[in-house]
């Protein structure tokens, strides 16, 4: 299946970058990048957050202009000034966050930006025919008249790909394309990518998932700290080697942990129903139990009610019905100070989205290290804030969790994603809670930090805490959890033993297709 990737010299590479440099103020985001992407290949680009992948692709796509260096498209030097220009050269991009108009049809989205003249009907008509041809050629079936918000995320992604192809893209850049997909949808995507390759298109795949690199790419380039470390043939490398190249040191990809010794039930959720802001039920009659000393993982595709479940248990969202018990006692977390009530009851919460919820990014690190606990006596008597005590506390937390740089006075936005997450974890674990609920603990976190964060979560478990974990990363759920519950459409559709369940079984459950026994417990 390996296609000959090094074509003849007469046939120039689809993309060639020479000595690309890009500064943002004092930050050297890309340094002397050389990259060759052969025509008709799938080329992976891996690297930690902040390694410069997105900057590089943005330069290629015309969002930024490089400070120096040359871009060669099909052997010719080009000055790419904006995305329209890039498209003109046959470069299309599928963003991580789709650029679709939710209440438009597929067809309307495809012609967006290429509507033609005053009347829109001719453009639609033309696009319909073209779409049909493309769908047939690349096996990309989508109903052109479906409304975007009514089709699945995987389908939406196809629309993004179709959009690029319709505009004549020859080279497709995909930025973290599988982040929002079920394993099955990801497989579908890979099938599409293979078809594209067979038809002679070139694909650049940006990802941090090494498994995907191994599964689909022909060549892979590793970036670290703004520099291109190496480009390898995928067939000649291994996930271990790639991880090491990305981080610059050896990394444990698998978490080491002892079997769990569950104690008494600490967190009990009974017949819980929760609505979202639009009063649509997102959690439907869920019951679950987390015992002391165990990690219960909730697997599921994003948007199946996990967020609402977490927020409800953490006191941020009032339930419609049902009850929550902590260490056997029924607790009420209603009201808009529910978060504090939960903390007082011994429940700590690492939210799914640290920047949106768990941190104030414009605060200094020490301020975030007391967020949610600022009212306690340890940070000042009565109404006053003891800034000295808070900073000392932050300093200790930062040291314990190896936050870098170890400066409590640094603005939080200036820490990397992984270090921001460490600040949140350090804060929430530091108050010795009985129950810890964790959402997406390693989303947007570098491989090196992932290892550290996983170890901390396991250490909490071993200290006898009850931990409820939600993650869309199936690997993470499988390696951390002692029990897995699968959530689909607001319900728990199955339970699995992480040691036995295969990815395929879990994937089917996550897609709501198969449910094993042990419905709601």
């Amino acid at each position, binding site marked *: 299946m390996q296609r000959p990737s090094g074509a003849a010299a007469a046939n120039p590479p689809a993309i060639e970058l020479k000595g690309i440099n890009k500064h943002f103020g*004092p*930050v050297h985001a890309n340094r002397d990048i050389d990259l060759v992407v052969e025509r008709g290949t799938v080329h992976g680009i891996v690297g930690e957050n*902040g390694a410069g992948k997105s900057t590089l692709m943005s330069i290629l796509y015309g969002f930024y202009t490089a400070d120096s260096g040359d871009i060669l498209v099909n052997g010719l030097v080009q000055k790419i000034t904006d995305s329209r220009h890039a498209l003109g050269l046959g470069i299309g991009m599928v963003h991580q966050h789709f650029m679709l108009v939710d209440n438009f049809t597929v067809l309307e989205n495809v012609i967006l930006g290429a509507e033609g003249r005053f009347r829109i009907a001719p453009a639609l008509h033309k696009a319909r025919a073209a779409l049909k041809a493309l769908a047939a050629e690349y096996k990309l079936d989508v109903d052109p008249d479906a409304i975007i918000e009514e089709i699945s995320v995987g389908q939406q992604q196809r629309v993004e790909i179709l959009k690029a192809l319709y505009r004549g893209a020859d080279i497709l850049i995909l930025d973290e394309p599988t982040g929002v997909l079920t394993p099955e949808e990801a497989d579908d995507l890979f099938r599409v990518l293979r078809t594209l390759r067979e038809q002679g298109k070139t694909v650049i795949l940006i990802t941090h998932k090494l498994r995907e690199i191994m599964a689909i790419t022909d060549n892979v380039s590793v970036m670290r700290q703004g520099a291109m470390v190496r480009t390898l043939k995928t067939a000649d490398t291994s996930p271990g080697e790639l991880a090491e190249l990305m981080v610059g040191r050896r990394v444990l990809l698998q978490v080491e942990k002892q079997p769990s010794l569950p104690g008494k039930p600490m967190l009990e959720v009974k017949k819980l129903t929760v609505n979202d802001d639009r009063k649509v039920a997102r959690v439907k009659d869920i019951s679950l139990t987390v015992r002391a000393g165990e990690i219960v993982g909730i697997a599921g595709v994003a948007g199946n009610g996990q967020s609402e479940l977490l927020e409800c248990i953490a006191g941020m969202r009032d339930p419609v019905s049902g009850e929550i018990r902590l260490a056997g006692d029924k607790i009420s977390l209603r009201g808009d100070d*529910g*978060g504090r009530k939960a903390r007082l009851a011994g429940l700590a919460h690492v939210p799914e989205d640290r920047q949106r919820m768990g941190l104030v990014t414009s605060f200094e690190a020490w301020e975030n290290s007391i967020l*949610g606990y600022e009212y306690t006596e340890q940070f000042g008597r009565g109404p006053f*804030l003891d800034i000295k005590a808070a900073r000392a506390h932050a300093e200790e937390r930062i040291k314990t969790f190896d936050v870098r740089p170890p400066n409590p*006075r640094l603005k939080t936005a200036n820490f990397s994603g992984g270090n921001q997450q460490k600040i949140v974890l350090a804060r929430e674990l530091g108050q010795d809670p009985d129950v810890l609920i964790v959402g997406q603990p390693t989303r947007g976190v570098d491989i090196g930090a992932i290892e550290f964060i996983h170890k901390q979560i396991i250490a909490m478990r071993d200290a006898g805490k009850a931990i409820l974990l939600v993650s869309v990363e199936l690997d993470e759920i499988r390696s951390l959890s002692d029990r897995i519950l699968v959530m689909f459409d607001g319900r728990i559709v199955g339970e699995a033993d992480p040691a036995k369940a295969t990815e395929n079984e879990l994937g089917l459950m996550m897609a709501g297709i198969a449910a094993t026994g042990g419905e709601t417990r």
Partner: protein
Amino acid sequence: MGGTSSIPRWADIVLLPLLNLILAFLISGLVVLMIGENPLMAYYAIFYGAFGSGDGLGYTLYYATNFVFTGLAVAIAAHAGLFNIGAEGQAYVAGLGAILVALALDQTSVFLVVPLAILGAAAFGGMWAAIPGWLQAKRGSHIVITTIMFNFIASAAMIYVLNRFLKPAGSNGLESRVLDQTAWMPQLRLFMPGFGFSPVNLSIVLALLLLVGFYILVWHTKFGFALRTMGKNPLASRYAGMSNVKLIVITMAISGGLAGMMAINQVLGLNHRLVENFVAGAGFVGIAVALMGRNHPVGIALAALLFGVLYQGGSEMQFVMPNVNKEVVSVVQALVILFTGAMEGLFRPSLERLFAGWGGSGKAEAIARTTAGSES
């Protein structure tokens, strides 16, 4: 990715407002030139009018006191992420609270009347701001809309109250009776004759105390921490379990109470009676003061002083220069508000580029610069 490009704090606080101010004065100078006067003379007239005599200085400080109060009112709300543009109406209604207390007790003692009048003004102003706060917190009615609407309601309601209840029988003007001297806020000229006939009064001490109190409240209390959390990220304050509803209502009450202190300065300190529309735009100037002062007490004090100078020096300019009338003074003031308030970010991009150009000193220093003392 992409560095969080920013400029040093000193440049943000000193250089940027200064550049805006210079530009405002340059353009004002052009306006003065257009009506056939010498801009340099105009600048001199403003400066001399504001500082050249004890009377002038007294008036400058008097106006500045008003603007400190309204500036603090806007700033405290801004720290909570709330844009209170209703300081005008809040100060107006607070005048009612002050005058009711003063009318009832003006035969007693200044030590009783003034503190109670302050409380009365704070309560009325606070209540007038808390209602939009509550509507925002509970009903999602946008505070910008409601506070400005409350300005109109205040204006109409105060006319009704003045006309119906407070106007002495047989009087023509829309104003209450004059207070007995015991209810007057002591003016500084009583102790410092140098201030001539200017109305600057002990409210200025209250203003200074509140500037310090503001700093402590915002940066050294748990309430202030919660307030700033909500202001920067309301979802984070909800996550932390701070009640946003409570925070919004309390913050707005404090904001309205601060605006209400302006009524003490004017009603007890100058007019000694309640006059129709006595606020006369001071509430709106507070917005510019807070913007220009970066919501920090030191900045607010300086900005309030600047606007005090413009008010006092501007009116003096009219007397000195024959072609300059009230409207021209308004134009100058409006230009300053425009450049320091509404367009305060005008020079920011170029400054950022300038400082980024010096970035050879390395990333660490840049980070240290942008982050050092953002709390102080």
